[in-house]
């Protein structure tokens, strides 16, 4: 990981962000698994393996020039209506919460189809 000549600032930022993300994820999982899954949107098995990694292992995982976590909103239409001007701007963060939690519900195996 070291001795990379003229390492780009962005790469360093990505490394830092990766490690911060992994450390945060791990502490959330240790604190309360269900709440952590709600916040992180990860699967249970994935969380279980993250939980047991040592710090050197987390560093290993974080050291790459690509981000290790992914945007949970993967549609440009959704990003558009979560950010556009609205008469009820003050509630847009709740809308984001509703969309993310709905997506999360869809990932659960027992999820019943909503009409």
């Amino acid at each position: 990981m070291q001795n990379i000549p003229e390492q780009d600032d962005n790469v360093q930022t990505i490394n830092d962000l990766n490690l911060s993300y992994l450390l945060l994820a791990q502490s959330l999982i240790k604190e309360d698994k269900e709440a952590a899954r709600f916040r992180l949107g990860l699967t249970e098995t994935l969380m279980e393996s993250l939980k047991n990694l040592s710090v050197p292992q987390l560093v290993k995982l974080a050291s790459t020039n690509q981000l290790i976590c992914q945007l949970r909103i993967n549609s440009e239409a959704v990003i558009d209506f979560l950010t556009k001007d609205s008469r009820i701007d003050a509630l847009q963060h709740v809308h984001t919460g509703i969309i993310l939690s709905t997506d999360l519900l869809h990932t659960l195996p027992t999820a019943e189809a909503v009409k």
Partner: protein
Amino acid sequence: MSEHSILDEVNDIHIAMDLISAGARMQVLESETTLSRRKLLRLYKEINGCSPAKGMLPFSPDWFMSWEQNIHSSLFYNIYLYLQRMEKQRPIITLLKAYRLYSEQCPCEPGKKPVLEFTRAWTLLRFIDCRMLEQVACSVCGGNFISTSRYTNALFTCSLCHPPSRASKKAPSEARC
């Protein structure tokens, strides 16, 4: 259940304390714990320093359909549903946790009551249990929202995608979102 163990009672006292702190009314405490009314009243007074409000609980499924209340209760219910499917806990424990996660996302403005108070959240679950309210997907954003059964035949659009004409709620100027 003829006799309750002391541990069960201690457990219920803890739940009652959490409920009272979350703002639950007496009716909620009485139906969710096995503690006597006398004990609950004392606990309530010791925590809040005053007697609980008297009178009936608000009983109106329509309350959940006005735009702002609908948005708040929809988020709360999504969280509740998720936790309920994840962990097989006593429903009241799940409700408390869901309400906590909801309040994190929608902290009430200082000096104001939360839009969705705890007892309302509790009644929402009762309404859904007896199918007076249900969850539908918005046809535009795909999010799950609370709706009454009588609306669900038509294509549903949430009030965040199409705010009703009278609705207005801008972020406060001293930005705290």
